[in-house]
């Protein structure tokens, strides 16, 4: 077991670490269906949700996970904070540090920002997305969903399509899927495929229809409407025309293929509504698994202790 104090990226995890997190999450999922959806595992622990970028689902998912484990949550988002008054990241963190938190969940637009703060805090740091670098809990919840539907990762053909260059989800997923033995193909407009990405051990196919052929898993990435540079593609209509997942296109994939999306989806941009609501779609399972994964990660990082029963 090499799972350390922080979770900065999938890059640092071993196959065994990933399996342990998935197994633990699987066991955690039962708690969410109890009449009393709470266990005292992290009673008295303070977890700071430090979000420097807007996020609804990742933050609420972490918050629910914290509450289910009885941790105290402190929410800190840039919109309501001193960041607006020009405070640096480190000063913000050093201030919060004096409240003695046991963990920081951090979302930030700069790659490496989570690593930066690890040197200044006593507690654990969990990366909830650092720029286009990593988003480890997203990849883990994707993996849990894939494992539930497909059983294993060995030789699984996975297609990830969309804005590869600006996606932290894709980098974490590449690391994870490669470690677990899956076969990864990336697809999207050439303007959104970063150079040298093949060096991460993936295939690139810009023709969406060719790329879909025989795939067991199709993961569609969100097109960031709000931050899209005009220069990357001409219009959303044209994007859907070339890279939108329709029922017709989905037929090109394996007949037992599952469709995934990290959310929130733009219907009619990344995929047609019929696909989003189809039996192949596991998008809502991903959301559900998100809570279990985050409970597992919090538990494993914050409650690392002797396992042997003291009777």
């Amino acid at each position, binding site marked *: 077991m090499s799972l350390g104090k922080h979770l900065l990226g999938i890059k640092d995890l071993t196959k065994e670490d990933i399996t342990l997190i998935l197994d633990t999450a699987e066991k955690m999922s039962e708690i969410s269906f109890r009449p009393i959806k709470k266990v005292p595992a992290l009673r008295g622990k303070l977890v700071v949700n430090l979000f420097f970028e807007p996020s609804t689902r990742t933050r609420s998912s972490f918050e629910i996970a914290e509450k289910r484990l009885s941790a105290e949550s402190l929410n800190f988002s840039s919109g309501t904070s001193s960041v607006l008054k020009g405070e*640096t*990241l*480190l000063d913000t963190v050093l201030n919060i540090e004096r409240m003695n938190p046991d963990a920081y969940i951090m979302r*930030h637009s*700069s*790659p*490496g*920002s989570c*690593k*930066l703060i690890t040197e200044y805090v006593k507690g654990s740091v969990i990366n909830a997305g*650092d*720029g*286009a*670098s*990593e988003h480890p809990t997203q990849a883990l919840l994707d993996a849990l969903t894939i494992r539930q539907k497909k059983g294993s990762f060995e030789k699984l053909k996975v297609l990830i399509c969309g804005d590869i260059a600006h996606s*932290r989800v894709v*980098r974490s997923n590449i690391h994870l899927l490669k470690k677990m033995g899956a076969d990864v193909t990336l697809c999207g407009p050439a303007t959104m495929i*970063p*150079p*040298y*990405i093949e*060096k*991460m051990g993936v295939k690139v196919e810009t023709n969406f229809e060719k790329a879909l052929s025989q795939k067991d898993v199709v993961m569609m990435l969100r097109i960031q409407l709000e931050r899209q540079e005009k220069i990357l593609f001409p219009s959303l209509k044209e994007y859907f025309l070339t890279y939108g997942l329709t029922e017709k296109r989905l037929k090109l994939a394996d007949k037992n293929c599952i469709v995934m999306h990290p959310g929130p989806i733009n219907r009619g941009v990344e995929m047609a509504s019929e696909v989003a609501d189809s039996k192949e779609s596991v998008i809502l399972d991903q959301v559900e698994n998100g809570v279990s994964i985050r409970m597992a990660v919090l538990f494993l990082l914050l409650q690392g202790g002797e396992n042997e029963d003291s009777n």
Partner: protein
Amino acid sequence: MKIVIKNGRVVDPQNGVDETLDILISNGKILSVDKKISVSKEVEVFDATGMIVAPGFIDLHCHLREPGYERKETIESGLLAALYGGFTAVCPMANTNPVNDNAGITNFILETAKKVSKIKVYPVGALSKGQKGEELANYAEMKEAGIWAVSDDGNPVMNSALLRRSLEYAGSLGLTVIDHPEDKNLSEGGSMNEGEVSTRLGLKGIPAEAELIHIRRDTALSNLTNESIHIAHISSKYSVESIRVAKKRKIKATADVTPHHFSLKDELVETFDTNYKMNPPLRTEEDIEKLIEGLNDGTIDCIATDHAPHAYEDKMVEFDRAANGIIGFQTAVPLAIEKLVLKDKISLKRMVDAFSSSPARIIGLKDKGHLSAGASADLTIFSLRKETFLKKEDIKSLSKNSPFLNKKIKGAVMAVVIDGNLFRLREK
């Protein structure tokens, strides 16, 4: 006051000298260079046995930050660092606040420097007013005050018509134009080399082509105007090739490389240590190889530090928000010794030339960069055997932004002589 530097290995590339000789200095000039000069008792003796004695090192490119950014560096602290780094002359860039785009600022820099240090300062004026890239700065009045070149450095000239006019106008005044080659549209938002590492880390990259495109433009405009252009701190193999071709075609282009660009590669950014963030960015192993090749064959004329002090708070932030650059005075000479000379990548003679004769030629200093009798008594005395190990308190700059802190580098500066004044910098 006479000084004699005894028993040193004198390396004077311009005069083709490389042997153990004594140098006699009087009244700020070199009086003679000869075997076993015998002297009377009142002459100060520096025993340079086991050391290299070279013409004073000249740094073509540095940032002294004063006026305006005195929390990063002052002229006094910067020149002290330069002295300890073995430099006898430096060329501060114009991006001060206010920008050095008029005689008032040039005079201030020169007068301040004269008060605080013996080091010779050859300021570089702004290419455009306020370095805004819009209209030419007042070259003639700055020239009269003491500049030798103009540059907008970190604000690369995007308007090619402006660069053309600058070359023509500066040329007519005997000034050199220095360009920091970077197409800002291609590099926008980038914080490291575009490549395998940037893709893996999710950091926006700066392609080497952003530099190449401007080097091609710069050399084309130099050819068009028949005026000299100096291309600052080149970083990639494509740039080396492009300058090699231009030189073959007799275009009046010269170039420099920084010690960090031939010592460090982009993989180091994986640590997210902001001391590895520079502009141009650190490139790959292959680029380093080609840069050194270019330095060896003279495609790259000289080594310049691009000494860029930044305060703690400018660097202790997120990688993509951190300031570019590192301090370089006190590590330049040891890095050249360790990475180039001791690895037999370039000769000692070529290294000395790249630090002294070449920059002197580019600036147009006839009495510097060589050790002929009558030349300025500017010497850099260093050891190939001693090691440099800099702790924070050894750094003379106000800023400590260096990736080489607490690291051993082979080679050390032992002493310098400026205008006949001997500075012993280190115990033997």
